[in-house]
């Protein structure tokens, strides 16, 4: 009888949250493509897409529609199952990370405390890492299954790049975790809500994390897997129609999610800066504070997305040996140094 006592509403609310989070991620990824084109245009003194709807805001729909109606080509010599698995995996892994990110505090509805986090697991950071590393399979499988030399080279490049930069990323996170003492995302955010944001303690760590995030999401200056001047189109060269769309889309979702992770880990998550949430909650109500907090997180994410795009249209692509040099010879020693210094300071202060 105890087994029957599953809280149905718990499942319903989590399912609803999953649907909301995934659709919001997709919507934001959609409009990141628009933002990308618009910001690129403005940085280059152009106007950008402005024909579809007012200010061109329907442009992503037009792009998506175009991709859907394009001819779907699967190369004869490709490995068909893997060829389809590649883009799906890229998309799934990009979306899966959103499960542990706290998108806000709690909502009080119908005497229920609804947390705006799908799963508050105690290994949240570790989970994110695991899923992000899975992302490389999307590129590798896609590159390999295409049965094309350029795609294969790009797949190998992408794999080695991601593995190299994950190391430095992990080391910076260790320094961060020494500060927080918890892998739980909600705890990390709550600590930042009362105290200062982690960026104050870990500026170098954030810088390394940010550079690694650029590399992990395959964004310029680290977009070597799709370097069109040497690899034509890289791992998605043989892809067409919506499978290509999924690959391109997965990149934007990954951008959105990694922005959210950076905002959560280093910039206070859903904390509203310079505001005491508890006293604000007494004046305007708890639910409103939660919504405002969620909006503040989205604003931080939007800022990071802008920085991602801004960097893309400023910095040229690294050469492959430069990329490896930077990853192994600069970032990993720096991250190690950061970790040791953090550890020493923590020990010294505790004495």
């Amino acid at each position: 009888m105890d087994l029957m006592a599953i809280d149905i509403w718990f499942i319903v609310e989590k399912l609803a949250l999953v649907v909301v989070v995934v659709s919001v991620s997709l919507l934001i990824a959609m409009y990141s493509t628009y933002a990308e084109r618009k910001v690129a245009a403005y940085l280059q003194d152009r106007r950008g897409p402005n024909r579809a709807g007012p200010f061109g805001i329907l442009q992503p729909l037009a792009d998506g529609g175009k991709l859907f109606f394009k001819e779907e080509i699967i190369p004869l010599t490709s490995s068909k199952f893997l060829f389809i698995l590649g883009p799906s995996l890229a998309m799934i892994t990009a979306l899966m990370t959103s499960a542990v990110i706290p998108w806000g505090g709690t909502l009080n509805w119908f005497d229920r405390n609804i947390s705006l986090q799908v799963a508050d697991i105690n290994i949240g950071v570790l989970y994110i890492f695991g899923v992000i590393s899975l992302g490389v399979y999307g590129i590798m499988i896609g590159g390999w299954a295409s049965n094309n030399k350029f795609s294969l080279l790009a797949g190998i490049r992408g794999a080695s790049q991601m593995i190299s930069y994950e190391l430095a990323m992990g080391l910076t996170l260790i320094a961060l975790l020494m500060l927080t003492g918890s892998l739980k995302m909600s705890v990390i955010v709550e600590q930042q809500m009362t105290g200062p944001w982690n960026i104050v303690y870990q500026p170098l760590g954030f810088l390394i994390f940010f550079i690694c995030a650029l590399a992990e999401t395959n964004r310029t200056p680290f977009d070597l897997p799709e370097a069109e001047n040497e690899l034509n189109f890289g791992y998605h060269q043989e892809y067409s129609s919506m499978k290509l769309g999924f690959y391109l889309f997965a990149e934007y979702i990954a951008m959105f999610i990694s922005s959210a992770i950076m905002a959560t880990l280093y910039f206070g998550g859903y904390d509203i800066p310079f505001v005491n949430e508890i006293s604000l909650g007494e004046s305007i109500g708890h639910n409103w504070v939660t919504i405002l907090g969620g909006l503040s997180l989205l604003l931080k994410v939007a800022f990071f997305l802008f920085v991602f795009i801004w960097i893309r249209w400023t910095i040229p692509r690294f050469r492959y040996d430069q990329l490896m040099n930077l990853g192994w010879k600069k970032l990993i020693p720096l991250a190690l140094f950061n970790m040791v210094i953090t550890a020493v300071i923590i020990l010294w202060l505790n004495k």
Partner: protein
Amino acid sequence: MQALTDKIKVVERKPMTLGERLYLPAIFKGMMITFGHLFKKRPTISYPEQKRYFPPVWRGLQILNRDEEGRERCTACGLCAVACPAEAITMEAAERMPGEEHLYKEEKYAAKYEINMLRCIFCGLCEEACPKDAIYLSQTFAPSNYHRKGFIYNKQDLLIPHPIEDPERYKKALGERAAAKELQAIDGEKETGNQSN
């Protein structure tokens, strides 16, 4: 080795300083430059809504002129075709029949008049060569077309709208330049008139 010229520029190959090797200052500098471009004025003209200003001396698409009563001025003398350096103009002459006086100004007219806009270099020599003020270059350009055939403009494409039947479009087609010219011509007539008096 002795230098052959005094324009030699010695390239410095000093090892980079720490600041330069960090790359980050240079990257921030570059990012500030691109950020500054966000607030710059855009030179783009959003074409269909916004049209670019054509200066009065602009030499654009040819127009075959009519006189005040709407009669074609062209007499098919062929001077424009001779003057044309790109050999873009071809024409066939015909004699004006009785009863066609309201259509053509002179006894001879152009039955066929074609300008190949792919050949035309818009030099304006046809306008200078014309003794009858029948052809002039307007302030527009030839719109794009999918076929080569579409760029061979015949008389119907080139003729200005009728000034009496369609005065509005006539005014528009006349353009600023021709209007100014007309004004000048009127002024000139006045002046010569004054002189004769």
